[in-house]
């Protein structure tokens, strides 16, 4: 399934938040959405998830308008992982992940549900904690459980808003690797990221946003140029030539 934004724009309370954004997320790829704070990345992701209606333009799922699709059908096609989630009440980890099967309640069998939940728990390495109360988890464990909930939907489209922001480097790598595996299995994944090194390493394509506009889109090598760092982020970089982090940030190019 392809998720496509067809020149969408949004103005809220007089602020132009998004300006003619046209991009698509294709099966088998991890699309990174990057850009400075306030660029409109999360707003765009919320529109792609069907949570916000664009002012103009359309969001298309395999050519069908997302906002005219029945909510239940949309729920099966698209999984969304928000940046912040409420502290789950004292449910067990397995119960929380099982909630991801709600969109399938009329279409899937109990065995299919159980298999999907177990696969999701295995994928994030939380099977051993399945019966533990979700109230007794660390921040990183909780993030993985919520990710497992999104994986359990087994939706062709997976949208994640800063999924690694609260994770330590090792867990961040594990989670990004997991998105890569989802893409390999044919899912279309879009991830909002702040960590450019992770974006460079794990994303198939990167979309750069600045002040509500799509500045650039392409492979990491095409997009992450010195000019982009200077113009979009206002930082100067020094290339180090290493694989994972081919640059280091040396100074701000913005005037105070």
């Amino acid at each position, binding site marked *: 399934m392809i998720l496509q934004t067809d020149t969408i724009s949004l103005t809220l309370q007089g602020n132009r938040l998004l300006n003619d954004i046209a991009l698509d997320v294709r099966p088998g790829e991890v699309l990174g959405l990057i850009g400075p704070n306030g660029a409109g990345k999360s707003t765009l992701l*919320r529109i792609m*998830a*069907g*949570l916000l209606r664009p002012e103009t333009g359309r969001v298309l799922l395999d050519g069908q308008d997302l906002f005219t699709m*029945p*909510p*239940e*059908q*949309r*729920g*099966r096609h*698209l*999984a*969304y*992982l*928000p940046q*912040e*989630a*409420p502290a*789950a*009440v*004292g*449910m067990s980890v397995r*119960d*929380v992940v099982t*909630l*991801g099967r*709600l*969109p399938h*309640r009329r279409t899937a069998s109990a065995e299919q549900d159980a298999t999907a939940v177990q696969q999701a728990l295995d994928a994030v390495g939380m099977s051993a904690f399945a019966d533990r109360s979700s109230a007794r988890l660390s921040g990183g464990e909780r993030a993985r459980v*919520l990710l497992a*909930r999104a994986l359990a*939907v087994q939706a062709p489209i997976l949208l994640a808003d800063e999924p690694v922001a609260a994770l330590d480097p090792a867990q961040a790598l594990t989670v990004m690797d997991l998105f890569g595996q989802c893409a390999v299995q044919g899912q279309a994944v879009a991830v909002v990221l702040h960590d450019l090194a992770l974006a460079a390493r794990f994303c198939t394509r990167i979309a750069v946003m600045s002040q509500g506009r799509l500045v650039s889109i392409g492979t990491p090598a095409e997009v992450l140029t010195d000019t982009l760092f200077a113009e979009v982020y206002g930082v100067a970089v020094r290339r180090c030539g290493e694989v994972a982090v081919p640059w280091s940030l040396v100074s701000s190019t913005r005037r105070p």
Partner: protein
Amino acid sequence: MNRYALTVAILGALVLALAILSLAAGPAGIGVIQGLSDMLHGRETIAATIIGQIRLPRMILALLIGGTLGLSGAALQGLVRNPLADPGVLGISGCGALGAVLVFYTGVSALWAPALPLAALSGAGLATLLLLALTRGGTLVLVLAGAALGSMSAALLALTLNLVPSPYASYEIMHWLMGSLSHASLHDVLIAAPGLLIGSVLLFSTARSLDALTLGEDVAQTMGFPLRAVQWRVVLGTALAVGSGVAVAGGIGFVGLVMPHLLRPLAGARPSRLLLPSALGGAALLLAADLFVRLPVSGAELQLGVVTSLIGTPVFFWQVWRLRGRPV
């Protein structure tokens, strides 16, 4: 049998036992089975009259009102994700009572009987809508808004009592405000039952949505459960259930607070799993309280709402104690 099924089975048996006891308890020493059989065969015996006109309506109303109060407490707590939500605590019952008293006081209900439940429904519905509009402000705002609604309805009720022309009418209103089923009649059952039943269906229909909401409004919406749809069903369901109950039995508080709290450890943390046990528990609690007020303790019959409040306030204190020190 798992713990959930066992909980439901035990509560169901308890409700059944209390319902039978409720039919059997009373000053007139009559046989329940004899009375029921006379009533069903249309024999106009004293036993048939007492069972059919007095005890059966009282039992049905205690069962339905208690059940819907427990259910609406559980649904409200699931919707706003806050264990302090209860139709009584949040002023919904008070506003329902205000609506009913205004119609009663102005004499409209004497001209057109459905005006009483409709006014109670409207009062409860408006209060629930206002609270929902304020839930986005978080726990503190919600509880304060509930306190404000409760105080407002209490003040306006006091004003109405103040202006009532005859002491007899003011006694009538007072008596009814304290919550009672002692004058329950078949007519009351007919007035209240449709709202109580439709309200229950609406509230039960939110089960899956309430589960989804534990993940937050955004995730619930992306899973196919638009928040607005759940909110409307809970508002309408609560207004119908609480309004209809208030219209015939007056203000009966804290059932919706007590039952989910007591049953959560047994039924689990999933909101959908709490609905049926809370409804059964609420029915059992009100049946038991209504049996208790019939005991000849002090000569005067205790008021039902007074008893449930005496049971409920310690639980309320306990909830506040547990929430202390948490950020609001």
